[in-house]
């Protein structure tokens, strides 16, 4: 496969202005499918969560899942959309083995939700409004596994295997209007937008929102135009970009690729691109124009959905606090500065800190542990901080041990390692590892005498009132006691010994 030419991102930005657009598919977490009563469960044995409707047998009658409609209306409301008074389903015709009916039941002219917006907060606090064109209901397709080719790719495969368990799982597809004006922040905005949609559907409780399971999937449209030109360039659509990091990388890559194509004087081809996480590049899929003739028509087996204003208002009343409002409230409650709070959000530990505070820690203690100890460990382990396995109760217990003077901060960090290694509760680990602050003054006084004798010049300085020199003696004592002394007590004893007022 040939490698496409790219410009550096900086050069692409100097020459061109990117326009973005996103289609985000959200799988709903209803108990059953959109049009059949078969279970909507991930990871079961292939072709066991299916019935006649999901397999597209002749003569079957689909019936709409009420909960899926309600979830879709909630998503529409959370995206500040209008909810259609009346809407219909339509058949989208195409042949592909993941769709046994040879059409996908979707919505076409009249989506259930339309004309919304989402205000996206970028990492530095900049707000960027993304306009939502529509959010419509449809069904997911089956899962294909390509056999015989390299790395499960469709290219070079000998045949494919199909599991229809996912066929008919309720989907809401959220489509943005063209997003202009993002400039060099386009990749960052792309990631932040998808993150915001994911956060909203998770917060609504209508989707499990796990991207690694395909609960939230993004198709990213990118086009470039010379600065100052109003007309959009020709776009590519990169399919199934399935992690937040990949969304950012895919948009960046496509900007760089388009820029190189335009620089060479060629037109960009309007096509589908496939994202490859391993090489962080895209490759050409089918040319878009081939299959764009879906011959939509109204689904004759499903009658229109009428969303009365009473029903919509009832659903609106059940909506949880929006994520952005929640962040404002939490920051105020916790008394974090803008910078501190932004760091917490960007590190992805806001929920964890909230739980830790609920478990009894103060806001500053919770932040100290998550930001100071856990985020770094998670980074080393290459997992999300919440996935590391630290429970709020563990932090509360560790902090109690520190506040009671039983262990110091350095030991607490060691105890945390023990907890993560599965050695037991903090108290058990303190016991087992023999970690306890030396509080008996006897051994401390010996260590202090030794440290003073070893550094007589320093001792002389302290006697002379240069109190900042005391660090060297405290350090010597801590070293001699292998860090098990209470540094504050050591300082007191040194001053006492030398007859200096602290």
């Amino acid at each position, binding site marked *: 496969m040939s490698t496409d030419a790219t410009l550096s991102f900086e050069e692409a930005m100097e020459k061109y202005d990117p326009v973005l657009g996103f289609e985000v598919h959200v799988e709903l977490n209803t108990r059953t499918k959109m049009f059949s*009563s078969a279970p909507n469960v991930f990871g079961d044995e292939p072709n*066991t969560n299916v019935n006649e409707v999901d397999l597209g047998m002749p003569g079957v009658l689909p*019936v709409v899942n009420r909960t899926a409609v309600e979830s879709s209306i909630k998503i529409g409301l959370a995206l500040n959309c209008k909810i259609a008074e009346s809407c219909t389903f339509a058949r989208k015709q195409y042949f592909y083995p993941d769709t046994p009916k040879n059409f996908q039941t979707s919505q076409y002219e009249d989506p259930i939700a339309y004309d919304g917006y989402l205000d996206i907060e970028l990492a530095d606090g900049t707000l960027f409004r993304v306009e939502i064109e529509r959010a419509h209901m449809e069904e997911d397709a089956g899962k294909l596994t390509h056999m015989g080719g390299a790395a499960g790719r469709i290219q070079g495969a000998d045949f494919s*295997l199909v599991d229809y368990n996912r066929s008919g799982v309720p989907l809401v597809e959220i489509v943005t209007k063209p997003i202009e004006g993002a400039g060099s922040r386009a990749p960052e905005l792309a990631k932040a937008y998808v993150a915001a949609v994911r956060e909203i559907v998770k917060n609504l409780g209508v989707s499990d929102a796990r991207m690694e399971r395909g609960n939230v999937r993004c198709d990213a449209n990118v086009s470039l135009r010379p600065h100052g030109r109003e007309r959009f360039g020709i776009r590519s659509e990169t399919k199934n970009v399935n992690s937040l990091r990949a969304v950012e990388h895919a948009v960046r890559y496509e900007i760089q690729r388009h820029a190189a194509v335009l620089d060479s004087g060629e037109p960009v081809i309007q096509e589908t691109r496939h994202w490859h996480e391993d090489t962080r590049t895209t490759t050409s899929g089918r040319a878009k124009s081939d299959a764009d003739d879906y011959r939509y028509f109204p689904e004759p087996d499903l009658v229109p959905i009428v969303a009365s204003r009473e029903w919509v208002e009832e659903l609106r009343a059940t909506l949880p606090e929006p994520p952005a409002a929640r962040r404002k409230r939490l920051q105020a409650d916790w008394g974090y500065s803008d910078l501190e709070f932004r760091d917490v959000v960007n590190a992805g530990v806001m929920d964890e800190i909230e739980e830790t505070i609920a478990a009894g820690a103060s806001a500053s203690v919770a932040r100290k542990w998550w930001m100071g100890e856990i985020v770094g460990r998670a980074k080393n382990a290459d997992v999300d901080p919440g996935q590391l396995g630290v429970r709020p109760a563990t932090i509360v217990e560790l902090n109690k041990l520190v506040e009671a003077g039983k262990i110091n901060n350095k030991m607490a960090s060691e105890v945390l390692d023990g907890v993560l290694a599965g050695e037991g509760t903090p108290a058990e680990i303190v016991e087992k590892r023999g970690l306890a602050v030396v509080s008996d003054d006897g051994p401390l006084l010996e260590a202090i005498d030794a440290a003073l004798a070893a550094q007589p010049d320093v001792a002389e300085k302290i006697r002379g009132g240069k109190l900042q020199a005391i660090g060297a003696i405290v350090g010597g004592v801590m070293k001699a006691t292998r860090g098990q002394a209470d540094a504050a007590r050591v300082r007191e004893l040194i001053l006492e010994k030398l007859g200096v007022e602290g």
Partner: protein
Amino acid sequence: MAAINRDDVAHLAQLAHIEMSAEELDRMAGELAVIVDSVKSVSEAAGDDVPATSHPIPLTNVFREDVVGHTLTAEQALSGAPDSDDNRFKVPAILDEA
């Protein structure tokens, strides 16, 4: 509505994965043109005061509660499949990469 010509039929046949001979295309273009004309008479009957409708029966909101119903076993699901492997439907290579 524009008349259906031979190229339209050939395009539709391709989209619908139906192989048609030259004679069939010619014949079908003629037959479909008659059908399109017949359907046209419906729009003559409906005045501007009649809104477009997708369903003949005035029913809305036919819903099912979100309760799990019956499923097929994998054996039942695959019983009509031309080919299968590992409890999944087996289909020929999707991309035509000769």
